[in-house]
């Protein structure tokens, strides 16, 4: 039935976002053409996005398209969660903990992962970043954070 999954999901996402934009912007005040309120431009854009999405949705049933292809789920999950984790713990646990975790967890996504080089990389990067970013550029990140008794 759906002949182009790309068009279908793109259309669905566009309609969803466009609709949300219009609905959320309702509270902002439209103003008039002469004095455009904060809702004016977003509403127009939201409507255009919905139209584009609708066209894509309709087209997805009519014209065949290239298939989406497999998702790199493992890569996606590991990379994104490693970044999230970094953000979550870097101030509380310190760079010395957060950075190696970031390296190791994200490196696990590779099909050619090996422990020894990865740990070496983590160590090297931590030292490098500690010197360049914290000592050198003064980025306010603790090396050891409050969770472990540091500053």
């Amino acid at each position, binding site marked *: 039935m759906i002949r182009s999954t790309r068009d279908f999901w793109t259309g669905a996402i566009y309609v969803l976002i466009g609709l949300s934009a219009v609905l959320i912007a309702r509270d902002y005040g439209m103003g008039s053409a002469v004095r455009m309120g*904060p809702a004016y431009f977003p509403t127009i854009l939201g409507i255009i*996005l919905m139209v584009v999405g609708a066209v894509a949705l309709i087209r997805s049933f009519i014209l065949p398209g290239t298939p989406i292809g497999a998702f790199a789920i493992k890569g996606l999950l590991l*990379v994104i969660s490693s*970044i*999230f984790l970094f*953000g979550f713990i*870097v101030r509380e646990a310190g760079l010395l903990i957060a950075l190696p975790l970031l*390296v190791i967890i*994200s490196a696990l996504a590779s099909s050619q992962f090996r422990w020894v080089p990865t740990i070496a990389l983590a160590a090297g990067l931590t030292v490098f970043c500690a010197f360049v970013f914290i000592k050198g*550029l003064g980025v306010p990140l603790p090396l050891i954070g409050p969770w472990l008794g540091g500053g």
Partner: protein
Amino acid sequence: MDLINNITLGFQTALTLANLFYCLIGVFLGTLIGVLPGLGPTATIAMLLPLTFALPPISSLIMLAGIYYGSQYGGSTTSILVNLPGEAASVVTTLDGYQMAKQGRAGVALATSAIGSFFAGTVATFLIAAFGPPLAAIALRFGPAEYFSLMTLGLVASIVLAQGSLLHAFGMVVLGLLLGLVGTDVTSGVQRFTFDTPELADGIGFVTVAMGMFGLGEIIRNLETEAQRSVVVAKITTLMPTREDWKRMIAPILRGTAVGSALGILPGSGSILGAFAAYSIEKKVSRNRAQFGKGAIEGVAAPESANNAGAQTSFIPMLTLGIPSNPVMALMVGAMIIQGIQPGPSVITEQPALFWGIVVSMWIGNLFLLILNLPLIGLWVRMIMIPYRLLYPAILVFCAIGVFSLRNSEFDVYLMALFGILGYVFSKLGCEAAPMLLAFILGPLMEEFLRRAMLLSRGDPLVFVQRPISATLLGIAVLAMTAVLLPSFGKTREVAFKE
């Protein structure tokens, strides 16, 4: 003559020890990331933007510019030696460059690429110097309606030049515009789309978006297909092209420079389209077209000149009008704003040292690249050997710390991760990220100009077609859209992209 005075000022600015140093770092870094697959100028410049807080404005822009056109040099090295394009624009160079390498002519290919790139860089620098001021002078007479139409044209062009579905690209532009509006509305003070999150009150940082969609998204995409790289590095014997080679190089270099310069100015492409177009044109026009794909020197000279010319001329709209024509330029706009410089036509007149310093430093940078690159080839080859599985975690580390350091906020890190997911999903769906980033930067500006234009015209929307310049700009936009929607042209576009 004014031009001479300006160029002198440029040399005075660019030849200070500090600026020479930053130029050198820029082109070195640029070549390095051009060599490394998976890391591009967009992500790198995004990563270095936080650092430019600390540098003086001219120096930081010189360095960032060097990274961009330097990456075009680096990309060709790997294309020729290892059949792996380090940069998107260097894909075409693999066709003949690697063949030349297999025939033992890797050195000649590299030299050709360097010579062509240097020539193109010189010409492009001259073009910027010659056309920059007149363009800016015209733009100074622009009213809000003209600016709005110009930006619309820019966005339409980025849609037209985007790969993949036009419809999807259109949606991405609108999405980018919407995302740009997140934050506090300057005119009314209303917080839009912030869901009461204080960190969003100033809007979403473009570095965050750029790193997320281009940096993270790219990494995840690369993890899909971890190709086993055949690192069969061709041996380099001689570097000097023969007399026959020289004769064959000249015309393709000239043509490539012309094509690349012209296409580089157009929004949406930068250097990539120029390289592809130059190769296609060269193939049609050359006497030796049968050799294309088998090691024709023209197949290296033309695209390499084009991509360098394109990388530099893409600075023209940004430096003269303040309008970025591709994501890298959008980041440069950001860099200027960080330094407190408002990009626009007045930059040339109010900050002549900045404009001319950058222009001259581009030429100096090309000189550095020509001289330094060939001896350093051994180093680049060793860099290529770095396994991706070690490279990308390092990239992630720099992105994470870099984004955090923008506002000392882990919220930005989370946001970047979110955009990483979005970037990956969109790329799977065939939605190009570049138009979105462009629109993201232009969004609030476009709204502002729309508002002012409507205010001045007392609510009359026809003002956009009544004022001549504005009407012309919109007319070109409409023409571009219709041309691309016509079936015959659409096919040409698809074929061009397939090649």
